[in-house]
């Protein structure tokens, strides 16, 4: 057992803050990096120390393995938590941390490499008897890839083997578009992941995106903490996630979760991970990929299980065994999360920048807000557009949804366009209330997710408030008695 006394959190915004808070509760000191373009992160005010990183563009600073390892070691940390995104699934980083004599809070470099690579992970899944979608990869015969891809059948998804997070993916519905899709996917993969290897798999129509939270310890125990439904997506990015998956057949749930545990166990998985699957309308599930890190949407699992997954991560990283067996895990009620992004959802999800001029988070029972900005912080294109996660719990799905809807309505974040109202409309949508969800939901219901137009009276109300909040600096009040006479005319 190697206790962690000081933790370096190689991340920013809401996840850095969330990890700092758990570390503090456990009596662990924290160090958080910052970049000149990111001076206002909430974690910076709560961590024990902060270290400046350098890089242009600013994201490069958070991808600088050498600098981060250096900073962690120099500040006397015993461990590094990578958060999500950035270097969290970078095997080289995990390896560099270990080589520097620090504990990496996550699986080993080898496991990251094996399970993080889509193609390798798929092969491994097949070996373990976990169902996968028909697919083709370039392997030793890149020239025959297009042919093999065509053989998989359409519709087809062409994507980067080393990628994730929705980048470098192209849906192809007819054979004639295949060549072009391969070109674009290769170009994007090279650009984002530095790796142009491609992978093509059958695209399931109207798939549900269902993932399983798994946890393994160094003693070889692996359990699951339930599934999450993440089908509400735009441009392959999740916007709303919930647990349990609405209307999921219990038998299917059991099969998916157990397949996830099988996979994790067989790969020697240690620490937190997520096995992502797609579920077809016919009730078949297929392994998609494994994320060898904590997920953005982990709070919904925490709220229904009552557990602190970051605490579990730190304990497992110390060498402790999992504190619960599978049978001991309990789930209560329903939790749902919405991602608050700085974008204009009604104008094609165009990102927006600005500065947070006014910030009022909602309050309520069973509400959890993981905020990544403070009032006065600039919102730029340098970093991810996610500003916060709003999570609500309820004994029933309806209650959780209703609470989250209210929370979104009461969230006041002014100074940059956010998608709060759009998310509220999704939650209010009758199809969503029924629980029919699949990854095409937002596109399919686009016309019924439009904002209501303002009446003239409502428009005047907004203008009146605007006039009071921003008075004309040049205006001088009319003196008496003119002011008292108002708009009198003879």
């Amino acid at each position, binding site marked *: 057992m190697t206790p962690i006394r000081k933790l370096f959190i190689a991340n920013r915004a809401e996840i850095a803050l969330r990890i700092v808070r758990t570390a503090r509760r456990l009596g662990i000191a924290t160090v958080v990096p910052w970049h000149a373009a990111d001076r206002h992160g909430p974690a910076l005010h709560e961590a024990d120390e902060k270290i400046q990183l350098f890089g*242009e*563009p600013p994201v490069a600073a958070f991808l600088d393995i050498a600098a981060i390892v250096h900073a962690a070691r120099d500040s006397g940390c015993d461990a590094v938590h990578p958060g999500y995104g950035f270097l969290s699934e970078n095997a080289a980083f995990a390896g560099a941390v270990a080589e520097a004599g620090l504990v990496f809070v996550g699986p080993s470099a080898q496991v990251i490499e094996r399970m993080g690579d889509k193609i390798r992970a798929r092969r491994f899944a097949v070996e373990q008897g976990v169902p996968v979608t028909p697919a083709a990869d370039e392997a030793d015969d890149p020239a025959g890839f297009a042919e093999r891809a065509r053989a998989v059948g359409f519709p087809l998804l062409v994507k980067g083997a080393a990628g994730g*997070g*929705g*980048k470098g993916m192209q849906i192809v519905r007819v054979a004639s578009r295949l060549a072009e899709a391969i070109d674009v996917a290769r170009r*994007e993969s090279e*650009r984002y992941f530095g790796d142009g290897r491609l992978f093509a798999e059958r695209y399931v129509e109207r798939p549900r995106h269902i993932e399983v939270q798994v946890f393994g310890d160094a003693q070889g125990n692996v359990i699951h903490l339930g599934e999450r439904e993440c089908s509400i997506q735009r*441009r*392959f*990015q999740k916007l709303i996630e919930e647990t349990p998956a609405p209307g999921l057949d219990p038998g299917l749930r059991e099969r998916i979760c157990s397949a996830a545990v099988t996979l994790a166990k067989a790969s020697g998985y240690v620490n937190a991970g997520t096995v992502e699957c797609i579920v077809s309308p016919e009730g078949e599930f297929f392994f998609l990929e494994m994320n060898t890190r904590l997920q953005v949407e982990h709070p919904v699992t925490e709220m229904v299980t009552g557990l602190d997954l970051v605490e579990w991560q730190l304990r497992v990283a110390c060498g402790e065994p999992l504190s619960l067996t599978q049978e001991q895990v309990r789930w209560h009620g329903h939790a749902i999360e919405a991602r608050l992004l700085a*974008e204009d959802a009604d104008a094609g*999800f*165009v*990102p*927006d*920048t*600005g*500065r947070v*001029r*006014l910030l*009022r988070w909602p309050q309520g029972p069973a509400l959890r807000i993981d905020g990544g900005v403070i009032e006065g912080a600039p919102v*730029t*294109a*340098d970093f991810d*557009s996610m500003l916060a996660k709003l999570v609500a719990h309820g004994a029933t799905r309806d209650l959780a949804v209703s609470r989250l809807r209210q929370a*979104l*309505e*009461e969230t*006041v*974040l*002014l*100074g940059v*366009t*956010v998608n*709060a*109202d759009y998310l*509220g409309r999704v939650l209010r949508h009758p199809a969503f209330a029924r629980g029919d969800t699949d990854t095409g939901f937002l596109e399919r219901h686009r016309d019924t997710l439009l*904002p209501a137009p*303002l009446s003239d*009276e*409502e*428009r*005047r*109300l*907004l*203008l*009146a*408030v*605007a*006039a*009071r*909040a*921003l*008075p*004309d600096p040049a*205006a001088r*009040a*009319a003196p008496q008695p003119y*002011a008292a006479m*108002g708009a009198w005319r003879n």
Partner: protein
Amino acid sequence: MNSFHFGGTRHRAQREPGSDRVRVDATLVSVQQDGPNRFVAPLDGRSERLHAVADGDQVWVHWRGRAWALQRIDATRSSAAGAAEAAGTAHAPMPGVVVSLLVATGQAVAEGDALLVIESMKLQTTIAAAAAGVVIELPFAVGQTFQRGAVLARLEPTEAS
């Protein structure tokens, strides 16, 4: 006199001196201030709560989960858009980063020619020339980030022959 741009049209909105009433175009609307950045106003017999904050020459208003940015108009500035300006500059439709530059300064381009590729939030977009001309400036290099509205390319429009 206070004028705002909202919903594609101009409106006048001026508080009556020393009162809680605001004259919006021809109508009087009652709005009380309830605390810093907080306002209360009657609508349809209900009491509505709103938040608002000034942001330079803009006001952001939040009401029932929705937010709007209203632009204060400086009435002493011309309302006519600089049409000549528009033809010679390419503006960024959203914030992002330059992926690749497809032309060089001094190069002649035709209307519709691709000038550069930008990427924002996993979306790649090609920026094209609005009119024929000669490229005089490319303010951002590959890998540099920019805000929405930034000038991505300046052209000297050439007269159509």
